[in-house]
């Protein structure tokens, strides 16, 4: 039997040691009427047949990695250095559990410590936790931290309408039992200054995304002071794209209290949406209110350096219903991948990747803007994603890009009408280092052929 090593003789000997006649006797305490149901599952396959079936299914999908792709909206096609998958394929990493026994988990613990350090470096914050499920749940946990910092007495949350729509939904889902009032509206043209005016002394936090869902960069200077003053230390939560921080001044330098985001661009594949990585960083003073695991440095009884999970009295296995969060499993292996990615690219490489994204996106914006009928919406500076006003519904244009051009398939941008009814015919276009000049020119050419 696959994955079960027992021989008949061993099984008999083991049953004899236990003192029962057969395996069924071990299940005698289960009510008979429920026992041994027929499961409606297909007949098992061999390993070879299983692989063939999955190869067939994988082959039905259009691979965005090997197709010119301009789709982002929260998940980005980036180049992943080979060393990343090499490290996360080590059985010592991927078949280990959460590092409960520190003495035999130093590899995982030190890697998390390095991850936490790099996230702090990237965001300009004091401390970072060992990860959340994704950017959306990290954002929801940031709201809960702010709510907890004010001992659940402040129930107003200001949420920018240009935060990723799915993150906004997850924040609503997570907090539905907390009786919060979430304000900020859903008009994506709302000025940040107007959002800051909504902050008052009942406000736990203001949540802003930059680059936001529409790709726009926001000037963060002065915002933290304004929010802290109006809201009597209400927290300033910034959601950001980690690649952009290779180039841009980090939110920590602007006085943010919590910085979170989606870590997928840091060396994780697209994987149809997961597993990804929620990163989470905050100020040292909130160490005891934050969610998630923290790894700290210490020494062993001989004075040798080592790493342990620490400040665990915040967590569910100790504090139960008083814990700061219920999180237990997180994204350990994905955090390791991001760590290897940041180490391999390093100080200079990440800056270069960020610049490539910036320059290519601006080149693409100019190229598309030059196409008759298409206009780039330029309200704010942008990083690697921007909005294009199109002469037809985006779905129609995307169909055209995929099906109507000879010998080429192009995956177009995201249809913003799905989230913002006032943005019919608006396409969100993402450009990364993976888009060659040739791909960008091809897109511009294809768009000019649209409607011919």
């Amino acid at each position: 039997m696959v994955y079960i090593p027992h021989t008949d003789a061993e099984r008999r000997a083991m049953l004899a040691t236990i003192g029962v006649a057969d395996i069924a006797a071990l299940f005698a305490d289960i009510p008979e009427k429920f026992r041994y149901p027929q499961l409606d599952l297909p007949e098992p396959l061999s390993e070879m047949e299983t692989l063939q079936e999955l190869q067939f299914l994988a082959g039905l999908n259009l691979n965005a990695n090997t197709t010119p792709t301009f789709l982002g909206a929260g998940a980005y096609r980036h180049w992943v250095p080979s060393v990343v998958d090499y490290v996360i394929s080590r059985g010592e990493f991927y078949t280990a559990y959460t590092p409960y026994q520190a003495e035999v988990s130093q590899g995982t613990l030190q890697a998390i410590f390095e991850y936490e350090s790099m996230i702090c470096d990237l965001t300009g914050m004091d401390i970072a936790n060992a990860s959340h499920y994704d950017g959306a749940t990290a954002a929801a946990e940031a709201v809960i931290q702010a709510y907890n910092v004010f001992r659940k007495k402040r129930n107003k949350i200001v949420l920018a309408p240009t935060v990723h729509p799915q993150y906004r939904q997850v924040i609503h889902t997570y907090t539905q039992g907390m009786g919060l009032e979430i304000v900020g509206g859903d008009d994506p043209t709302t000025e940040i200054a107007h959002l800051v005016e909504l902050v008052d002394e009942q406000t736990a936090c203001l949540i802003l995304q930059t680059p936001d869902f529409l790709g726009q960069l926001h000037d963060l200077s002065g915002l933290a002071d304004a929010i802290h003053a109006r809201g009597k230390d209400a927290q300033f939560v910034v959601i950001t794209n980690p690649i952009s921080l290779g180039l841009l001044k980090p939110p920590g330098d602007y006085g943010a209290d919590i910085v979170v985001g989606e870590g997928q661009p840091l060396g994780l594949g697209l994987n149809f949406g997961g597993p990804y990585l929620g990163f989470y960083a905050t100020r040292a003073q909130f160490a005891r209110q934050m969610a998630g695991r923290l790894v700290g440095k210490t020494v062993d009884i001989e004075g040798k350096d080592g790493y342990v999970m620490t400040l665990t009295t915040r967590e569910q296995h100790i504090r139960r219903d008083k814990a700061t969060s219920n999180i237990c499993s997180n994204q350990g292996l994905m955090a390791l991948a991001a760590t290897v990615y940041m180490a391999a690219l390093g100080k200079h490489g990440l800056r270069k990747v960020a610049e490539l994204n910036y320059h290519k996106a601006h080149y693409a914006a100019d190229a598309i803007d030059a196409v008759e009928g298409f206009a780039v919406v330029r309200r704010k500076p942008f990083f690697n994603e921007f909005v294009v006003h199109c002469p037809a519904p985006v779905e129609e244009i995307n169909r055209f890009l995929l099906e109507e051009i000879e010998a080429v398939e192009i995956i177009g941008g995201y249809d913003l009408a799905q989230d913002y009814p006032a943005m019919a015919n608006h396409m969100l276009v993402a450009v990364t280092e993976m888009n060659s000049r040739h791909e960008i020119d091809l897109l511009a050419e294809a768009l000019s052929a649209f409607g011919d």
Partner: protein
Amino acid sequence: MTEPLIYELSSPGREGVKPPQLDVPESALPQGWLREDLPLPEVSEIDVVRHYLRLSQLNYAIDKGMYPLGSCTMKFNPKINEVTARLPGFTGIHPLQHPDDVQGALYVIYTLQEYIKAIGGFAGVTLQPAAGAHGELTGVLIMRKYHLERGETQRDTILVPDSAHGTNPASTSMSGLRVVEIPSDARGNVDLDALRSQVCERVAGLMFTNPNTLGLFEEHMEDVIDIVHGCGGLVYGDGANMNALTGIMRPGDAGIDVMHFNLHKTFSTPHGGGGPGCGAVGVAAHLVDYLPGPIVVLDPNLEEEDDPYFIFHEPPKSIGRVKAFWGHFGIMVRAYTYIRMLGSEGLRRSAEHAVLNANYLLSRIKGVYPLPYDRICKHEFVVEGRFKDAPGVHALDIAKRLIDYGVHPPTNYFPLIVPEALMIEPTETESRQSLDNYADILLKIAQEAHETPDLLHAAPQNAPVRRLDEVRAARNPVLRYEH
């Protein structure tokens, strides 16, 4: 043996792997918004490879040996899982591509939803939750919303047995509900009298782990479920222990209303040193409309002769999305692969051998390690890690001594209702030799506890580091590298 931090290997000006060259004209950068310094390490690829390879060697892992952490189901992670999950047609797809272009992926999600329904006896399944605790949060929010929709706004209480995982009460309070703890009886079951005394119109539901965290099947399962249903409450099943039941019993048949499954326990996807997992949630028919959306369904507009076509569907009374996109697709591919290879019989035999292995190991050490509840166990069991005539020895000492013998300790100090608990779950993928080796080591340690207890107190001595100072770590937290 210690390994420096990657930062300490850094050499100014050294470059790692190289990104591509710029092939478009440069645009003006937003001056004033640029960062001056990015203090990441400066290392080469070989530095990275050697550093993380050396770190990996400081870990214990299931690929190295038996890892019987109770409640964690550390079974073998089949290698084909890693091959299928890395097929380019799966890793290279963007979550927002048009459904036409990702039908293979939607087939996997839909079919895995169907498999989990079949295995659990449920009417609906979501694969969106990222982990067991995330599934719990999803399940509790579903129960809450179900009562609210029925106008029963007073149902603000979740009953949680005292043997429950810590995530159960934590998920409850995150959902804005109140926890009332139910004690266990002398045989390790939920105490029926205590349960009866707490059921009332305020009860939204009970969180029920069966087999419970003592590894024991709840002898009054049907009564427990009837009592909670009788007061209008729902019963949540904590599926962390499903490895004892696949193909043996479907929780949905017994009246469980909502339950999470840990694909990273029961269905062999790796734990990754702490994640990622997948906390699929199954629900009975009356809760299908509350599932977090979207779920994958067959297009209802198909004609009989059409090929199957899958679309996303938003359940009408959904609690809302609990995660961006569709869940941990890469983990779903692994679980799909596993179920496809085992089929119905393979899953049943896995549960049978998980239970056989636990009872065998228990039989080997019974009488030496105190056993608080002497019954046939399911996939795991709990003994006390203490001896009357060796008063200075604690569960922690036994755990650390196991490390010296080259195996991984069990879960310790959980469940909270057993003093000095050692919670042991061998899983079905361990052979008899492997179990005998572990039993021999445990018996040897019990002997040492009486004869040479200092060996236990000093343990581990055969590990990359000795016991670490956790008090110092918490009192003076050093949570990052200081430049």
